[in-house]
Protein backbone atom coordinates (compact mmCIF):
# COMPACT_ATOMS: atom_id res chain seq x y z
CA UNK A 1 0.00 0.00 0.00
CA UNK A 2 2.81 2.40 0.93
CA UNK A 3 4.56 1.42 -2.26
CA UNK A 4 1.45 2.18 -4.31
CA UNK A 5 1.01 5.65 -2.77
CA UNK A 6 4.68 6.53 -3.28
CA UNK A 7 4.68 5.22 -6.87
CA UNK A 8 1.54 7.19 -7.77
CA UNK A 9 3.05 10.33 -6.18
CA UNK A 10 6.29 9.93 -8.14
CA UNK A 11 4.63 9.23 -11.48
CA UNK A 12 2.00 11.97 -11.07
CA UNK A 13 4.76 14.46 -10.24
CA UNK A 14 6.76 13.40 -13.26
CA UNK A 15 3.79 13.60 -15.65
CA UNK A 16 2.80 17.01 -14.28
CA UNK A 17 6.37 18.29 -14.59
CA UNK A 18 6.47 17.27 -18.24
CA UNK A 19 3.07 18.65 -19.29
CA UNK A 20 2.47 22.00 -17.56
CA UNK A 21 3.03 25.28 -19.39
CA UNK A 22 4.51 27.49 -16.66
CA UNK A 23 8.08 26.53 -15.81
CA UNK A 24 7.92 27.27 -12.08
CA UNK A 25 4.93 24.94 -11.72
CA UNK A 26 6.89 22.26 -13.59
CA UNK A 27 9.76 22.59 -11.12
CA UNK A 28 7.40 22.33 -8.12
CA UNK A 29 5.92 19.14 -9.60
CA UNK A 30 9.48 17.88 -10.13
CA UNK A 31 10.18 18.45 -6.41
CA UNK A 32 7.11 16.34 -5.55
CA UNK A 33 8.40 13.61 -7.86
CA UNK A 34 11.82 13.65 -6.16
CA UNK A 35 10.24 13.49 -2.69
CA UNK A 36 8.27 10.46 -3.84
CA UNK A 37 11.46 8.83 -5.11
CA UNK A 38 13.21 9.48 -1.79
CA UNK A 39 10.23 7.85 -0.07
CA UNK A 40 10.58 4.85 -2.38
CA UNK A 41 14.27 4.52 -1.46
CA UNK A 42 13.38 4.66 2.25
CA UNK A 43 10.60 2.08 1.68
CA UNK A 44 13.14 -0.23 0.02
CA UNK A 45 15.44 0.06 3.05
CA UNK A 46 18.14 2.32 1.59
CA UNK A 47 18.06 5.04 4.24
CA UNK A 48 21.29 6.72 3.20
CA UNK A 49 20.35 6.88 -0.49
CA UNK A 50 16.93 8.31 0.43
CA UNK A 51 18.45 11.05 2.56
CA UNK A 52 21.04 11.88 -0.11
CA UNK A 53 18.26 12.05 -2.70
CA UNK A 54 16.33 14.45 -0.46
CA UNK A 55 19.35 16.69 0.17
CA UNK A 56 20.86 16.74 -3.31
CA UNK A 57 17.77 16.73 -5.52
CA UNK A 58 15.05 18.44 -3.51
CA UNK A 59 17.54 20.72 -1.79
CA UNK A 60 20.05 21.60 -4.47
CA UNK A 61 19.05 20.63 -8.02
CA UNK A 62 15.50 22.00 -7.81
CA UNK A 63 16.74 25.29 -6.37
CA UNK A 64 19.39 25.46 -9.10
CA UNK A 65 16.71 24.99 -11.78
CA UNK A 66 14.54 27.69 -10.17
CA UNK A 67 17.51 30.06 -10.31
CA UNK A 68 18.09 29.20 -13.96
CA UNK A 69 14.41 29.96 -14.73
CA UNK A 70 14.62 33.30 -12.93
CA UNK A 71 17.89 34.28 -14.61
CA UNK A 72 16.70 33.39 -18.11
CA UNK A 73 13.32 35.14 -17.59
CA UNK A 74 11.46 32.25 -19.19
CA UNK A 75 8.13 32.11 -17.38
CA UNK A 76 6.29 30.03 -19.94
CA UNK A 77 7.50 27.23 -22.14
CA UNK A 78 6.98 27.87 -25.85
CA UNK A 79 3.94 26.00 -27.22
CA UNK A 80 4.57 22.54 -28.58
CA UNK A 81 4.30 21.67 -32.23
CA UNK A 82 1.57 19.11 -32.80
CA UNK A 83 3.51 16.56 -34.84
CA UNK A 84 6.63 16.74 -32.70
CA UNK A 85 4.55 16.05 -29.61
CA UNK A 86 2.79 13.11 -31.20
CA UNK A 87 6.04 11.59 -32.46
CA UNK A 88 7.71 12.00 -29.05
CA UNK A 89 4.79 10.35 -27.26
CA UNK A 90 4.86 7.47 -29.78
CA UNK A 91 8.61 6.96 -29.31
CA UNK A 92 8.40 6.98 -25.52
CA UNK A 93 5.39 4.61 -25.59
CA UNK A 94 7.40 2.23 -27.78
CA UNK A 95 10.36 2.42 -25.39
CA UNK A 96 8.04 1.68 -22.47
CA UNK A 97 6.57 -1.29 -24.33
CA UNK A 98 10.05 -2.75 -24.88
CA UNK A 99 11.03 -2.17 -21.23
CA UNK A 100 7.80 -3.72 -19.94
CA UNK A 101 8.28 -6.73 -22.21
CA UNK A 102 11.82 -7.16 -20.87
CA UNK A 103 10.59 -6.95 -17.27
CA UNK A 104 7.81 -9.50 -17.84
CA UNK A 105 9.91 -11.85 -19.96
CA UNK A 106 12.88 -11.78 -17.57
CA UNK A 107 11.88 -14.84 -15.57
CA UNK A 108 15.19 -15.01 -13.72
CA UNK A 109 14.16 -12.24 -11.33
CA UNK A 110 11.51 -14.33 -9.57
CA UNK A 111 11.82 -15.49 -6.03
CA UNK A 112 15.18 -14.11 -4.98
CA UNK A 113 13.70 -11.83 -2.35
CA UNK A 114 14.98 -12.68 1.11
CA UNK A 115 14.82 -10.68 4.32
CA UNK A 116 15.42 -6.97 4.66
CA UNK A 117 19.13 -6.37 3.93
CA UNK A 118 21.13 -4.13 6.22
CA UNK A 119 22.87 -0.97 5.02
CA UNK A 120 23.98 1.08 7.99
CA UNK A 121 25.94 4.30 7.67
CA UNK A 122 28.94 2.53 9.18
CA UNK A 123 28.94 -0.15 6.51
CA UNK A 124 28.58 2.43 3.73
CA UNK A 125 31.37 4.55 5.20
CA UNK A 126 33.81 1.68 5.51
CA UNK A 127 32.96 0.52 1.98
CA UNK A 128 33.57 4.05 0.66
CA UNK A 129 36.91 4.22 2.47
CA UNK A 130 37.91 0.67 1.59
CA UNK A 131 36.81 -1.01 -1.63
CA UNK A 132 35.53 2.15 -3.30
CA UNK A 133 38.19 4.66 -2.32
CA UNK A 134 39.50 5.17 -5.86
CA UNK A 135 36.04 5.91 -7.38
CA UNK A 136 35.39 8.24 -4.44
CA UNK A 137 38.52 10.26 -5.22
CA UNK A 138 37.68 10.32 -8.93
CA UNK A 139 34.16 11.59 -8.17
CA UNK A 140 35.63 14.30 -5.94
CA UNK A 141 37.95 15.41 -8.72
CA UNK A 142 35.07 15.33 -11.23
CA UNK A 143 32.82 17.43 -8.98
CA UNK A 144 35.55 20.02 -8.47
CA UNK A 145 36.27 20.22 -12.20
CA UNK A 146 32.55 20.39 -13.08
CA UNK A 147 31.79 23.16 -10.61
CA UNK A 148 34.81 25.25 -11.69
CA UNK A 149 33.76 24.63 -15.30
CA UNK A 150 30.18 25.71 -14.55
CA UNK A 151 31.41 28.98 -13.01
CA UNK A 152 33.70 29.64 -15.97
CA UNK A 153 30.96 28.93 -18.53
CA UNK A 154 28.37 31.07 -16.76
CA UNK A 155 30.77 33.97 -16.16
CA UNK A 156 30.08 37.24 -17.99
CA UNK A 157 32.01 37.50 -21.23
CA UNK A 158 34.61 40.26 -21.35
CA UNK A 159 33.84 43.14 -23.68
CA UNK A 160 37.36 43.06 -25.13
CA UNK A 161 36.95 39.44 -26.19
CA UNK A 162 34.32 40.60 -28.73
Amino acid at each position, binding site marked *: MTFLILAVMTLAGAITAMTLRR*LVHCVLALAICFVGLAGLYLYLGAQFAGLVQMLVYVGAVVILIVFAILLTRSHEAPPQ*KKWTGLAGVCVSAAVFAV*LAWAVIAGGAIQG*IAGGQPQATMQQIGSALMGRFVLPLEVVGLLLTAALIGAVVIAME*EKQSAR
Partner: protein
Amino acid sequence: MNPLTGCLFVSALLFSIGLGGALTRRSAILVLIGIELMLNAANLNFIAFWRYGPHPEALTGILFVIFSIAIAAAEAAVGLALILSVYRHFKTTDLSRLDSMKG
Protein backbone atom coordinates in the same frame (compact mmCIF):
# COMPACT_ATOMS: atom_id res chain seq x y z
CA MET B 1 3.09 -9.24 -9.03
CA ASN B 2 6.17 -9.47 -6.85
CA PRO B 3 7.66 -6.27 -5.42
CA LEU B 4 10.70 -6.24 -7.70
CA THR B 5 8.47 -6.23 -10.79
CA GLY B 6 6.49 -3.32 -9.35
CA CYS B 7 9.67 -1.30 -8.83
CA LEU B 8 10.88 -2.10 -12.34
CA PHE B 9 7.52 -1.00 -13.82
CA VAL B 10 7.60 2.31 -11.92
CA SER B 11 11.15 2.83 -13.11
CA ALA B 12 10.27 2.03 -16.74
CA LEU B 13 7.31 4.44 -16.61
CA LEU B 14 9.50 7.17 -15.11
CA PHE B 15 12.10 6.64 -17.85
CA SER B 16 9.45 6.82 -20.58
CA ILE B 17 7.94 10.01 -19.13
CA GLY B 18 11.38 11.61 -18.97
CA LEU B 19 12.20 10.52 -22.51
CA GLY B 20 8.89 11.81 -23.85
CA GLY B 21 9.40 15.16 -22.14
CA ALA B 22 12.98 15.50 -23.33
CA LEU B 23 11.90 14.74 -26.91
CA THR B 24 8.81 16.95 -27.12
CA ARG B 25 9.33 20.03 -24.94
CA ARG B 26 10.90 23.07 -26.57
CA SER B 27 12.31 24.79 -23.49
CA ALA B 28 15.94 23.88 -22.75
CA ILE B 29 15.29 23.80 -19.00
CA LEU B 30 12.44 21.29 -19.44
CA VAL B 31 14.68 19.06 -21.56
CA LEU B 32 17.20 19.08 -18.71
CA ILE B 33 14.41 18.13 -16.27
CA GLY B 34 13.51 15.19 -18.54
CA ILE B 35 17.12 13.99 -18.49
CA GLU B 36 17.16 14.20 -14.69
CA LEU B 37 14.00 12.05 -14.58
CA MET B 38 15.67 9.39 -16.75
CA LEU B 39 18.73 9.35 -14.45
CA ASN B 40 16.46 8.91 -11.43
CA ALA B 41 14.70 5.98 -13.09
CA ALA B 42 18.08 4.25 -13.41
CA ASN B 43 18.81 4.96 -9.72
CA LEU B 44 15.50 3.39 -8.69
CA ASN B 45 16.47 0.25 -10.62
CA PHE B 46 19.80 0.06 -8.80
CA ILE B 47 18.12 0.31 -5.40
CA ALA B 48 15.44 -2.25 -6.33
CA PHE B 49 18.00 -4.78 -7.54
CA TRP B 50 20.08 -4.19 -4.41
CA ARG B 51 17.04 -4.82 -2.20
CA TYR B 52 15.70 -7.93 -3.95
CA GLY B 53 18.82 -9.35 -5.59
CA PRO B 54 21.43 -11.77 -4.25
CA HIS B 55 24.36 -10.53 -2.09
CA PRO B 56 22.86 -7.30 -0.68
CA GLU B 57 25.68 -7.22 1.90
CA ALA B 58 28.11 -6.09 -0.83
CA LEU B 59 26.25 -2.71 -0.95
CA THR B 60 27.09 -2.31 -4.64
CA GLY B 61 23.67 -0.92 -5.57
CA ILE B 62 23.65 1.78 -2.90
CA LEU B 63 27.20 2.91 -3.66
CA PHE B 64 26.44 3.03 -7.38
CA VAL B 65 23.42 5.24 -6.62
CA ILE B 66 25.55 7.57 -4.48
CA PHE B 67 28.13 7.99 -7.25
CA SER B 68 25.36 8.41 -9.82
CA ILE B 69 23.73 11.18 -7.76
CA ALA B 70 27.10 12.97 -7.55
CA ILE B 71 27.52 12.76 -11.33
CA ALA B 72 23.93 13.98 -11.85
CA ALA B 73 24.56 17.00 -9.61
CA ALA B 74 27.66 17.92 -11.62
CA GLU B 75 25.69 17.43 -14.85
CA ALA B 76 22.87 19.69 -13.66
CA ALA B 77 25.32 22.45 -12.67
CA VAL B 78 27.16 22.37 -16.00
CA GLY B 79 23.92 22.08 -17.99
CA LEU B 80 22.32 25.07 -16.31
CA ALA B 81 25.51 27.12 -16.76
CA LEU B 82 25.38 26.25 -20.48
CA ILE B 83 21.72 27.29 -20.63
CA LEU B 84 22.59 30.64 -19.00
CA SER B 85 25.42 31.16 -21.46
CA VAL B 86 23.21 30.31 -24.44
CA TYR B 87 20.48 32.62 -23.13
CA ARG B 88 22.96 35.48 -22.84
CA HIS B 89 23.99 34.94 -26.44
CA PHE B 90 20.65 34.28 -28.17
CA LYS B 91 18.22 35.95 -25.69
CA THR B 92 16.02 32.85 -25.72
CA THR B 93 15.93 29.27 -24.41
CA ASP B 94 13.51 28.05 -27.10
CA LEU B 95 15.34 25.09 -28.61
CA SER B 96 13.63 25.32 -31.99
CA ARG B 97 15.11 28.79 -32.48
CA LEU B 98 18.66 27.79 -31.53
CA ASP B 99 19.52 26.38 -34.92
CA SER B 100 22.68 28.20 -35.92
CA MET B 101 26.18 27.16 -34.91
CA LYS B 102 27.65 30.52 -35.85
CA GLY B 103 27.42 33.25 -33.25
